[in-house]
Every structure is written in structure tokens, then in C-alpha cells.
């Protein structure tokens, strides 16, 4: 039965690539910075998935440890990034990225 066959590593790579692509595409086409941020999280997760799959297929647990670090960085990045969004919104009352393109103080 094909349904009971072992999943090859390539399938995980494709899945991870698909999720990453969706995240990247979402990041490019959406304008709401919060949604764009969530797309970045999706991309990070796609990376994590590949890490874990590689850890499993190579039999080295360190890949899972790296996922840990990625999550830490993601949490730090979200905390600061959302703080920036909140701060900008407080000043400009818009959170459309195309509106906040000027970078001069």
C-alpha cells in the first residue's frame, strides 16, 4: 500500500518550500503590516519544519535545538516589530505600509 509507505525527505522539503513560498507571497502582496508580520512567522515555521525533518532523517537531534533558537528569535522579533507598528500607528493613525514609506524623522 502506498499509503503506508515511508514518506521520503523530499516530501518534507516540498511541504516546507510550499509553506515558505506562501509566506513570502503573502508578505509581498498584503498591505496590512500585521498580516505581513504573520506571513514572516509562517516563513519561519516553514524553516523550522525543514530543520526538524532534517534532524529526523539524519538522526541528529541538534536540528530540533535550532528550532528552539528560531522560536526565541521569532518571539524577540515579534515583540520589537509589533512595538514599532504600535508606535507608528500612535503617531500617524494609519497602518498602511504604503503610507508610511517616508523614513525621514
Amino acid at each position: 500500500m502506498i499509503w503506508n509507505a515511508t514518506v521520503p525527505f523530499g516530501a518534507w522539503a516540498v511541504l516546507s518550500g510550499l509553506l515558505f513560498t506562501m509566506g513570502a507571497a503573502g508578505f509581498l502582496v498584503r498591505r496590512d503590516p500585521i498580516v505581513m508580520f504573520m506571513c514572516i512567522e509562517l516563513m519561519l515555521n516553514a524553516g523550522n519544519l525543514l530543520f526538524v525533518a532534517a534532524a529526523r532523517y539524519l538522526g541528529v537531534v541538534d536540528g530540533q535545538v535550532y528550532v528552539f533558537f528560531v522560536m526565541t528569535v521569532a518571539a524577540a522579533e515579534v515583540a520589537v516589530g509589533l512595538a514599532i507598528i504600535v508606535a507608528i500607528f500612535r503617531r500617524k493613525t494609519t497602518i498602511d505600509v504604503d503610507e508610511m514609506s517616508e523614513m525621514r524623522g
Partner: protein
Amino acid sequence: MTWLTFLIVSGIAVIFAGGLIFSRNAVHGAMCLVASFCAIATLFLLLSAEFIFVVQIAVYAGAIMVLFLFVMMLLNVQGQEGALAGRAPGQLLVALALGAALLGQAVWLVARGGEIISRPARIPAGFGSPEDIGTALFTRNLLPFEITSLVLLAAMAGAVVLARKAGLSPKPNGAPAGGKPE
């Protein structure tokens, strides 16, 4: 780990990821992303990464996405933005090209990489258990672990400073530190 479970769970993950991209409402998008993260967590379980499975749920679904929801509520986002609303058309083009390139890469990986590692390695019984992770984390990866605390410290300080700049802190004018009010 069989094809059937893999296909079902990854299908759920992909569908909800699509929900994030196409949802008109940011809160719905966040809920889709939570569901997608839970599906990815289940995939971690299939890869015998049980500790990462539960950390994924606790950190991504339980903490990070809550922060997103809070910000949406604070900023009163109601999703007036149309899904896929017109950015510069070039960006959509770039997105499509990027997607095509990545998919091509993935296909190449299947075609070529499949030969490199096709079957899962033999793993010891406790693979991916908290003990296993702990040993790897606190012996071989000690330096990154310690540096992690600096990342967290920097994030903490950065976010608090940004919040103060925006006048969100109760004492925006830099009231004397240390004095315990009241």
C-alpha cells in the same frame, strides 16, 4: 509516519496558511495561522520531535499569536484592506516569480535530494524527548543558549523603549527610575 497521515496533516497546514494569505479580516487570518501552527506542531510529532511539538503550541499558538491578537485589538484593525489589494503590480509579479522559483527548487530537491536522504535514520528510543533536547542544548549548544538571553534582553529593552517613545508608558517623561510609586 505514513503518507496518509502526512498528507492529511500537511494539507490542513497548507489550507490554513492559504487562509492567512487570502483572509480579508486580520483576526480571521490570525486564527487561520494558529490552526496552521497546530498542524505544523502535529507534523513535528510525526517527526518524533515531541518536545518541539509542545513548545510550538505553547510559544507560537499560546504566546506569539496572542500578542498579534492584542495588537489588532489595540489598533482596532477591522480588515478594510481588501485581500490581495493592489500594491504596485510589480510586487505581485515578484511574488509570483518568487513562488515559481521556490517551487522549482523544491521540485529539484525531490528529484535530486531524494537520492541523498530518502529514508529516516535509525534513531534511539528517546529521540526528541526533553532529556535528549536538554542534553544537546546544555552541552553542545551552550553558547547559543547563553546568547539567546541577550537577544531576549535586547528585545525587552527595545520594546519598552519604543513603547515609551510612543507615549504608552505611564511615565513618558522619564520619571525618576527606582522610586516605587505609591
